[in-house]
């Protein structure tokens, strides 16, 4: 065991945990004031529920040896993992670190269905989705027995497992739950959006540089390219926003940063600073236009989860193949003459898109039919705001009585 790597991975795990409150504020600021508590709770409760699922059976299904398609129940309740097990860093630390990914991935999906999804159904959805969608895809990509790992698909920190997966599940959810009755046009709290983006950016260093699972030069490389891609995408989005509207939207710049962070995620252990600049610029530009196009298609993916995370993840997965540098991550990319790397990348993207879309829709279809559950809050609840109807709380109380 290396104490330096333990130190870094403890820190990285804490950083990734903080991303979820960050997401809560990023999303929470974007909705209307009557839905902010609900939106925040979609994320925050994932910290509770996903952690419990993860230690009980999620980790085992994702990282148990199992087959090429899914793990097994050998580590259920983390049984058999001793405090001193593991090489480099303790196995329990890997469990903790990976558990933070299992928290944020379903939380990302919630951006699609905010302001109308039934909260109790969401809790059931979260458990099923982690079990039936997240754990298998995680196993495919990151377990040495997984079929995508085996094929050589590159995903350093979760472009497919986390972002494409959540992005397409968001499409499924937006389709199944339907449009909001009366969507707002302005975010209710822009500072919250920026605070959330700031915490996400900060936490993402744990996400990407932590995916080296060591305090080594690869972690350092992942760290710096993460920063560069976030910066470039934020700038690109901001400048295009300014060119199109004459004003530089703060929400746009914050979203651009997130799009850049998403896109660099799969690439962060494989590309250099120049690759990161290209990936950031691509994500900043493409995701911005995608937001409008998808809105135009009539899908009420309320907070643009597919445009930012789905598409950002796809851009990142593809450009990982293009810009991979052998001296960094051990695999050469197209630019270094290795076109063969693209096949597994494309297969990984398609498999994730297909599997997650179908199974997410199936889960939601079933939940919609179960008496007492159902996907959609009542019209009265939606009109009144989800904060009062689902949580019995008003976000901000400032009338005479305070």
């Amino acid at each position, binding site marked *: 065991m290396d104490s330096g790597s333990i130190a870094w991975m403890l820190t990285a795990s804490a950083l990734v945990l903080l991303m979820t409150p960050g997401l809560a504020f990023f999303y929470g600021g974007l909705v209307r004031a009557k839905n902010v508590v609900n939106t925040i709770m979609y994320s925050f409760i994932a910290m509770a529920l996903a952690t419990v699922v993860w230690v009980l059976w999620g980790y085992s299904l994702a990282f148990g040896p199992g087959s090429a398609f899914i793990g097994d129940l050998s580590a259920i309740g983390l049984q058999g993992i001793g405090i001193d097990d593991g090489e480099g860093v303790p196995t329990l630390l890997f469990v903790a670190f990976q558990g933070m990914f299992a928290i944020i991935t379903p939380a990302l999906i919630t951006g699609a269905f905010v302001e109308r999804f039934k909260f109790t159904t969401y809790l059931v959805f979260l458990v099923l989705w982690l079990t039936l969608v997240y754990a298998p895809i995680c196993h495919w990509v990151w377990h040495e027995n997984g079929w995508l790992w085996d094929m050589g698909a590159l995903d350093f920190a979760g472009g497919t497992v986390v972002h494409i997966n959540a992005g397409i599940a968001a499409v499924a959810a937006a389709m199944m739950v339907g449009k909001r009755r009366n969507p707002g*046009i*302005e975010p209710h709290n822009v500072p919250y959006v920026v605070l959330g983006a700031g915490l996400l950016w900060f936490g993402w260093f744990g996400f990407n540089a932590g995916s080296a699972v060591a305090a080594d030069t690869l972690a350092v490389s992942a760290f710096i390219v993460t920063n560069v891609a976030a910066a470039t995408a934020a700038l690109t*989005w*901001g400048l*295009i*926003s300014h060119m*199109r*509207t*004459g*004003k*530089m*939207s703060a*929400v*746009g*710049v914050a*979203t*651009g940063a997130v799009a850049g962070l998403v896109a660099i995620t799969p690439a962060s252990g494989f590309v250099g600073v120049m690759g990161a600049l290209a990936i950031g610029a691509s994500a900043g530009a493409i995701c*911005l*236009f995608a*937001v*409008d196009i998808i*809105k135009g298609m009539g899908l009420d993916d309320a907070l*643009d989860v597919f445009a930012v995370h789905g598409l950002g993840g796809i851009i990142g997965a593809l450009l990982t193949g293009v810009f991979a540098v052998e001296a960094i991550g051990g695999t050469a990319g197209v630019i270094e003459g290795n076109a063969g790397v693209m096949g597994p990348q494309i297969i990984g993207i398609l498999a994730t898109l297909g599997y997650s879309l179908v199974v997410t829709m199936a889960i939601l279809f079933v939940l919609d039919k179960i008496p007492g559950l159902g996907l959609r809050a009542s019209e009265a609840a939606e009109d009144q705001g989800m904060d009062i109807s689902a949580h019995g709380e008003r976000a901000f109380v400032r009338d005479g009585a305070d």
Partner: protein
Amino acid sequence: MLKIEAIFRPERVNAVSTALLDAGVTGFHYQNVTGQGQQRGVEVVTGRGGQATTRSAVPKTLLVTVIADDKKDEVVEAIVSATRSGEIGDGKIFITEVRDVVRVRTGESGADAI
């Protein structure tokens, strides 16, 4: 006794306060409202920065003061001079009659309570 309700641009509230005090008004209160009139509204960015749209309702301040009848012209003049820019959106003043006024502290009523 008259109630003067004035709606104007928020950045003018200090100027109005000063003008009213100069005009001898005894008190007033104000609050933020959202107003819509001939003013085309303000341009806001939507679609996460990709598009701009005009939001016709704009932030305004609504100030209310109750005065004696004979102060009407002076007070209206004070407000107008503190809020007029000549651009659309300067705002309006509404004048209504007040039947009675009570000062809570003393129980005085009518003109004495203003």
